[in-house]
């Protein structure tokens, strides 16, 4: 199954996504895959109300997306936004392998994180988990904007290993 873009971003739907990626890819829908937002009607409503003109915003819990991604309607016009690495990890370990790979696009500084790239801050367990996903054949790459450099799976692995070794 090929989506327009699959992106991991703790801010989910925001300016970089709507203006940066949305402007370049012209999606018909944004699909937010995030357990916390799916369980919170207020926050879900905020994202749905923030839908750009001509676009639909949908929210799904991780498990629901895990069982339906292979036959997702209009996948080729959909940008998938995953908010949490834990969710990504569960999806990938359950066989999530979208054509075109999965972009790590924005994970910001939190207590205990190290800076892997300016837009990619991870804890050591998260780094180990991502290396495990790469080992399992997940096509992960790092790229924040369409015009920015794309760090493919090999380069990403080197960045992750370097960040781990620096601690």
């Amino acid at each position: 199954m090929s989506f327009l873009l699959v992106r991991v971003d703790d801010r989910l739907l925001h300016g970089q996504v709507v203006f940066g990626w949305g402007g370049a890819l012209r999606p018909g829908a944004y699909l937010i895959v995030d357990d916390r937002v799916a369980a919170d009607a207020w926050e879900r409503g905020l994202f749905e109300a923030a839908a750009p003109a001509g676009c639909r915003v949908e929210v799904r819990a991780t498990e629901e997306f895990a069982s339906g991604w292979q036959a997702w309607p209009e996948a080729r016009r959909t940008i998938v936004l995953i908010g949490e690495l834990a969710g990504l990890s569960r999806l990938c370990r359950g066989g999530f392998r979208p054509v075109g790979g999965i972009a790590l696009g924005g994970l910001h500084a939190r207590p205990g994180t190290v800076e892997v790239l300016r837009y990619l801050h991870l804890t050591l367990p998260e780094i180990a988990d991502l290396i495990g996903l790469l080992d399992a054949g997940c096509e992960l790459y790092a790229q924040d904007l369409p015009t920015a450099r794309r760090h493919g799976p090999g380069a990403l692995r080197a960045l992750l290993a370097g960040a781990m070794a620096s601690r």
Partner: protein
Amino acid sequence: MTGERRVPGVLVTHGRLGLELLRTAESILGPQPAMQVVSNSGKSPEGLQAEIEALLPPSGPVVVLVDLLGGSCGHACALVRRGRPDLLLAGGVNLPMLLEFLCHRGSASPGDLRERLLTRGRDGIRLLGWAEEEPA
């Protein structure tokens, strides 16, 4: 303008936009107490929300001005607004709106202030040229 009645404000923006907006307003109006600036730069959604919450008065009217609703700043502000009926969230802040807020937050009623922010922010946008009708 009496200090006791001045409605506090929090300006939430991308990058250094808020800092420079306030600095510019202060160069026009002089120093502005009870005015806080928050940037989203490098912050997680939870971190940004916590920083805004920490700057709000525990109760009473407050105005949060944000550059873009539907972005990370606007989203954090909208989450902060939950359970705070005395918080007015003003999206799409520009210099005319900010100046209007700073000039009238000590005297206008909440309803009047709300109307002023909307009207001045919107009417501050005008296009001259390329136009079918241009004032003589």
